[in-house]
């Protein structure tokens, strides 16, 4: 029977030995980042010691609501997610791409700004984050013009995934088929139990690190326990996306009254797109020096909720909130399928929790599909 856990050889890393994983990664030249509590949320930050991990921390998430709670649990990963995961590490919110200068003879020259990123290990990546990463790979690497900046960072990335045993009420990765168990795309995966971690390698690099750890045999009881927790995590999810070809349904309902309804609530603030692990829109800007002799060309996170996103030939073709929200939803859940072969939603629920006015994407698309006619 498929218990949802990996079919790779599995071992057990006792909780008291977990520091050895951080130490091994550090020894192999990786900078380590992992979950820590900062500013009332779980965020990824530099990790040197297990003492920095959010022990017993739980997250309570609702539309427009995120709170942390403490418990007596010895666990470090008993939370669903925070506002960001991998996106800022691979696709930074602001980066200089190239610079131009006027040389002494008056000619122009252009120079690409190349950075050489350090190897980076991320601990605590979820199945939804891995699914989002695969989508970003498809966009940034596998298209006709691979993005060199993304590619350099991607090569240096080592991923330690963790099974999601405590989904938030906003999670719906079961519905999108992306979780809660990481199935591929990681170097190492962990299933956390009170006494330690069931661990397996998903890559040769992962196996090399694994071989250095003080592992013990995993018991049948521990595997059962992890399987049961995963099963419970799946059953705990209540939100879902509607069935059906959303790319067709949404585009056949561009005048549905629900778009007006959601536009009355939506702030067009772009928070949903910024926390979305698959959104990749950016704006590019030039900033000249005061003397006008040099200029930096940079890109920064943008959003389909901004005026500039649809500013073409002297005007914004999506001037109001209604058309901007419709653009976000129809692209994310609809035309994304035509572009990348799958929906752009991985069910992480961040756009629901981090919407300042609690707009729930599953509810909006559900309302449009409920009474929608389509071919």
């Amino acid at each position, binding site marked *: 029977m498929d218990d949802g856990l990996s079919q790779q050889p599995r071992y057990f890393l006792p909780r008291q030995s977990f520091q050895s994983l951080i130490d091994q990664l550090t020894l192999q030249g990786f900078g380590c980042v992992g979950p820590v509590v*900062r*500013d*009332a*949320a779980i*965020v990824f930050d530099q990790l040197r010691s297990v003492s920095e991990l959010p022990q017993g921390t739980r997250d309570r998430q609702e539309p*427009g*609501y*995120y*709170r942390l709670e403490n418990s007596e649990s010895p666990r470090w990963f008993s939370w669903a997610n925070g*506002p*960001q995961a991998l996106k*800022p590490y691979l696709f930074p*919110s*602001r980066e200089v791409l190239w610079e131009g200068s006027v040389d002494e003879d008056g000619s122009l020259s252009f120079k690409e700004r190349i950075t050489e990123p350090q190897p980076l290990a991320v601990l605590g990546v979820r199945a939804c984050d891995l699914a989002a990463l695969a989508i970003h790979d498809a966009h940034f690497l596998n298209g006709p013009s691979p993005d060199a900046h993304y590619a350099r960072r991607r090569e240096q990335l080592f991923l330690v995934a963790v099974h999601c045993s405590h989904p938030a009420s906003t999670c719906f990765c079961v519905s999108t088929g992306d979780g809660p168990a990481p199935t591929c795309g990681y170097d190492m995966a962990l299933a956390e139990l009170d006494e330690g971690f069931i661990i397996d390698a998903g890559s040769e690099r992962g196996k090399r690190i694994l071989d250095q750890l003080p592992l013990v045999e995993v018991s049948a009881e521990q595997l059962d326990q992890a399987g049961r927790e995963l099963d419970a995590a799946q059953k705990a999810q209540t939100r879902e996306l509607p069935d059906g070809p959303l790319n067709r349904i949404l585009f056949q309902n561009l005048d549905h009254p629900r778009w007006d309804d959601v536009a*009355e*609530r*939506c*702030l*067009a*603030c*772009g*928070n949903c797109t*910024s*926390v979305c692990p698959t959104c990749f829109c950016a704006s590019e*800007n030039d*900033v*000249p*020096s*005061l*003397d*006008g002799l040099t200029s930096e060309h940079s890109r*920064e*996170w*943008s*959003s389909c*909720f*901004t*005026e*500039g996103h649809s500013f073409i030939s002297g005007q914004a073709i999506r*001037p*109001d*909130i209604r058309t*901007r929200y419709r653009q976000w939803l129809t692209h994310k859940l609809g035309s994304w399928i035509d572009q990348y072969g799958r929906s752009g939603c991985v069910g992480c629920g961040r756009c629901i*929790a*981090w*919407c*300042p*006015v*609690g707009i729930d994407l599953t509810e909006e698309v559900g309302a449009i599909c409920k009474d929608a006619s389509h071919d």
Partner: protein
Amino acid sequence: MDTSPPGIKPRLAVHKFASCDGCQLTFLNMGETLLQLADMVELVHFAEAGPVAPDADVDIAFIEGSVTTEHDLERIRQIRSHSGFIVAFGACATAGGIQALRNFADAAEWVSAVYASPEYIDSLATSTPMSDHITVDLEIWGCPPNRDQVLGAIRAWLYGTLPAQSQDKVCMECKRQQAVCVLVARGMPCMGPVTQTGCGALCPSFGRGCYSCYGPAEALNTDSLCGWFEGLGLLPADITRQFRHVSNSAPQFRDAAANIIATDAGHGH
């Protein structure tokens, strides 16, 4: 825009109206860049920095402050006639500033309550932005605007173009900074979703709600945000105060506050 012959530096003025001088400090705090700027333009009038020639002809004038007296009205018209390109910069010059709160009150009563000898005070009943009185060529919002905005405006003007200005919400920059949303994670009222970016999401980065120093963003939905504030437990007076900060007389914020007051009155409170 820069039509001056080669070798002749464009002439720049910085004028002050009713304000706290903070916007002028944006120039003074530039450090070495101010020296570089002084090499490129001639600082004809900038009282806080030294040169005083308020009536001189200039190519570009930066105006700080709002119009609050009859004398201000005369001065700004004079300046308009002496200046090629006028930049209104800061919350006072673009929206009337914090002193525009008088627009919602009995100004004469305030004067008599505040001053021991109110007969010496000769001011208008309102505080208004420059654009109410003259043609303004460029507005730079913010309390105060940052140096990059000011330098970017000068650089663009020297090129003969307008600077790229974003009216995106503070939330966009807040997320770029990886700041955690105080509205969602702490239930703290924050004006970020209706405020234009430019400050670098300064307050939310330090765990405080946005005060809307940079004024209204584009594509606003103040009603929805007010409704959410109400759900957080804010009273109508608290919500009104959120909009009546330094950009209280920006039309969108003025109307949002008026709306709350009218709705509250309608409820018979």
